[in-house]
């Protein structure tokens, strides 16, 4: 099992969600984070113009069975992208075990 963490533009979220749905990745969690990176956003507040790299992003945490990994990455790379600086990152790491709380199922079964 792998954990895919994707940090994407908030504005791309609906598209990404739709696309994940189509490849039957219907399980994940997400929340809003502030991202620091290459992109800069111009702000003005009470006469102070400034450019900040602290930008609102959406953080998706998706745990998938190994054979789902590639297609999920593909979909994310495709739908979350605009080609402009600030599209975000995807991180993949290993998950040792998964449980479904309701049924106590373990492993890949818990991800179905």
């Amino acid at each position, binding site marked *: 099992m792998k954990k895919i963490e994707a940090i994407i533009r908030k504005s791309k979220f609906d598209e990404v969600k739709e696309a994940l749905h189509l490849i039957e990745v219907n399980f994940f969690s997400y929340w809003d984070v502030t991202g620091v990176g290459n992109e800069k956003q111009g702000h*003005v*507040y*009470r*006469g*102070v113009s*400034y450019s900040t790299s602290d930008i609102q992003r959406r953080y998706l945490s998706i745990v998938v069975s190994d054979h789902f990994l590639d297609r999920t990455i593909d979909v994310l790379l495709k739908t979350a992208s605009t080609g402009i600086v600030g599209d975000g990152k995807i991180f993949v790491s290993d998950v040792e075990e998964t449980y479904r709380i309701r049924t106590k199922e373990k492993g890949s079964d818990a991800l179905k």
Partner: protein
Amino acid sequence: MDTNAVLDIMWIIISGILVFFMQAGFTLVEVGFTRSKNAGNIIMKNLMDLCIGSLGFWAIGYTVMYGDEIGGFIGTPSLFFSDMENMHNLFFQTVFAATAATIVSGAIAERTKFTTYLIFSLIMTVVIYPISGNWVWQGEGWLTNLGFIDFAGSTVVHSVGGWSALIAAFLVGPRLGKYTNGKSNAIQGHNIVLGAIGVFVLWFGWFGFNGGSQLAISGDNVNAVSGILITTNLAAAAAAIAAMFVSWGLYGKPDVSMTLNGALAGLVAITAGCAAVSPVGAAIIGLVAGIVIVFSIEFIDKKLKIDDPVGAVSVHGVCGALGTLLVGVFALDGGLLYGGGFGLLGVQATGVLAIGAWAIATSFIVLYTLKKTIGLRVSKEEEVDGLDIHEHKSNVYND
């Protein structure tokens, strides 16, 4: 009592009730324009300056301001005002005094000790404000005798609050992180919606502030009052539009918080002359105030490097003075543009300077003393963590 007297008093108390509600407006603006970790503290400061002001002004401040004149400088103080035929005046003046006091809280928000603020607030409402108020509104004060016009208090109320705010913000110093390497950083307010609602509430209350200052509505006064509502409204509208376009020009986009401050700038600026100028004059005064406010906020922030999170100094101090001076230009009776020459303008300048000097000097003495004794400022740790958790052991926003 005859009907006209009833009408007049009724108008005064209705106006006073509207002015009271401005306290909610100030609280909204100040909470919205600062960070969430200090919101509880700002609420407490705004509530307490109203409470302390209400008691203090009744206990002694009112007579310091309106008691029998002593030398054109101060009224004869007496304790616990209890003339039951003048309760409407006490009420109307109390809410004005509370306004002057509450202006300061915004400028020193997010870093000032609560106890220190309580003490300063009391002194403001029983000494600083009533004495300069006496000069203009008691009827025999020295500025009245000069012919100084400050109808509803651009200078008497707003500038006094604004200049005290300037001194206070200067002495307490900028918030941590506001200036780094000589550069001014933006510390964004946490909820500009609250700020915007606060501006609507203030504008609403301001009709009582200016309209009520006619202190009468019977007979032809009612036309005067109606005119005041129009000048007040036009100045605010013109100022908000002006501030918006100026910010648009300067920063490329119409700035929300500047536009909101613009509306307030127009309201403060027209306060002195709302009964003395024409609608056109009012619109122009608003326009000027709306332009000046933007540059004033920038100047105080970037050049003077005085940290005023809500723009209180610019809105109340600078635009209060500006509006008072512009009476000398636009007053239908005596204004420069209406053939009155420079006489009135000179008087207006005298009043602005005298009261400015008074507010600055007394605030400095009081606040400097407080600084050297109990201290003005919370500890670094308290400031960083937020005043709410340290000064009040709780957060305003939960779950």
